[in-house]
């Protein structure tokens, strides 16, 4: 379970203080399929970054399965991310010089899986996201949507506790968006994988089972379907 308590992130720009995340208290349970929505500048990215340990909150804390990760030193945090959190970014997620399959294997290599296991799992994951026949291609030879599917597969490779995706569909057309969402929601239903993603897109928001709306860094609505 992910929990934030009185989470604040304040950016100072000269004398101006921007409360990018303003006193957010949030609980996200295992198996959720949750969208964080809100207008541009409302703090979605900042909130996800704090949850994923990429950014340190100004005050308040982030707890993941009882561990207060917001106070981890950066080296420990890198290791924690490797083993517990899967990331999908808006674009350019993959290492350009590695093939789709190698991108996935790399994560498992860093975790210390043996060769056979890496081979097996990367193939399974690529098949799972419908990319089994393009495993040898480099990112530049894939469309944006295909790259994002590989990115999801890579995020899953480390067997993380949850996957954070900041606007994963922002650069995709509607067909690719629909495909990616199909895959994500199937993984969520069948494998019980927790997804937390941010989005502007109403079609994406419609697919979420819980929608948290931010405005000026504050949660203004939190609806479960």
């Amino acid at each position, binding site marked *: 379970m992910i929990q934030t308590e009185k989470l604040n992130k304040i950016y100072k720009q000269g004398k101006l203080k921007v409360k990018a995340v303003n006193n957010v208290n949030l609980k996200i349970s295992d198996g959720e399929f949750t969208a964080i929505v809100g207008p541009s500048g409302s703090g979605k990215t900042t909130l996800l*970054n704090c949850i994923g340990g990429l950014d340190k909150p100004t005050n308040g804390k982030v707890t993941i399965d009882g561990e207060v990760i917001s106070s981890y030193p950066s080296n420990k945090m*890198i290791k924690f*991310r490797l083993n517990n959190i899967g*990331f999908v*970014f808006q674009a350019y997620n993959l*290492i350009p*010089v590695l093939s789709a399959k190698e991108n996935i294997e790399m*994560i498992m290599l860093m975790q210390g899986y043996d060769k056979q296991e890496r081979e097996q799992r990367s193939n399974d994951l690529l098949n799972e996201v419908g990319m089994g026949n393009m495993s040898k291609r480099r990112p530049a030879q894939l469309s944006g949507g295909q790259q994002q599917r590989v990115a999801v597969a890579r995020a899953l490779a480390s067997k993380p506790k949850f996957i954070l995706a900041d606007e994963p569909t922002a650069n995709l057309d509607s067909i690719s968006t629909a495909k990616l969402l199909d895959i994500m929601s199937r993984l969520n239903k069948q494998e019980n994988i927790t997804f937390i993603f941010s989005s502007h897109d109403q079609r994406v928001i419609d697919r979420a089972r819980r929608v948290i709306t931010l405005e000026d860094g504050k949660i203004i609505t939190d609806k479960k379907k």
Partner: protein
Amino acid sequence: MIFKIAWRNIGRNKKRTLITTLSVSAALFLIILMRSMQFGFYDNIIHSIVQSYSGYIQVHSNGYWEKQSLNNAMEIDDDLINKINSVDGVKNLTNRLQTFALVSKGEKSKGAIINGVEIEKEQLITDWNKKIIEGSQYFDSTDQIVLSKGIAEYFNTKIGDTLVLFGQGYQGMMAAGKYVANGIIDLKNPGLNKMTIFMDIKSAQDYISSDDIATHLIIDKEKYYNEKKIAENISNVISDDYEVMTWKEILPELDQMITADNVGGLIMAFILYVIVCFGMFGTVLMMTEERKYEFGVLLSIGMSKIKLYLIILLETIMLSSIGVIIGIILTRPISLYFNKNPIHMDSFGEGLSDAMGEFGFDPIIPFSINWDIPISHAIFIFCVSILISIYPAIRIFSLNPIKSMKQ
């Protein structure tokens, strides 16, 4: 996997990689050839003068070098020889008795240096048998001598011809004698070739009318030993009645010439290295800066900073290594060729070879094929590339994934 990533990153911008590695190999190419030429040149000098004539170290009676007179000659005894032989690095040593004489044959006469030598021991130092061009190197009787090529030509001498030597003997006595040419030697050294006559040291002692004296003790060293160290050690074991000199003291002009030339080469190499450094640094700088976003992603998904740095370090090392390998591969055949077919100094302009002849060695430059040259410069470039990768190291260790991912 890190290796694979680094290797492929090298291929990512092929043009840049090509330009960078070529600049490394071009610089290395010039440096290696220049140094091979220089060291080959020095080796040639040292071989033709030091190793085959003057010796790395000489011992004389104190004051002899100042005033090269027989009155400053020394008595040689076994104790002295044993003491010198006991010093680490001394390989061979031999006595010479040297004196000036007027040589004449028929109408012609000419000044020369008589060198009384211990032929068996001399052979170990100067490789005589390889230099004899006519007759024999040995002295079968006390009136036989070996002439250097120049003297033989001057007097138009054949084996068996008689020459008269005339000069000053020990302690003011007169020295004179008739001698028979038994061999002609090419000392591979224009200066010495013009004026050297060899005879057995016993004959020379007879000629000057004094037993058991010598003017020079010529010492050859073991390879890789420093002659200055050996000279110091010899000084410490023998009495103050002797002076111990290295070839650099005996032939200071030669040493100065080599040093000046060597410094010139080092300055050139340094300039080339500076250019290479900037070239490589520029590439590494670009490689780091343009991939900030990628680094951010890698850090986010859990790659450690050390691994990230290792990738860049490997890329830097690969870039320079490719350049180094190309540079060495290109220079090797050239060095080998000019080692076998030395450049003659006339090709650098008229007169230069005469000037070199004055110094007393063949005006040729056989290139050095010592692996020390390419290897030392390869190691230097390797170290430079590690030094250069300090910049990406600093960038990576201060990298914040969020900031680097904000374009």
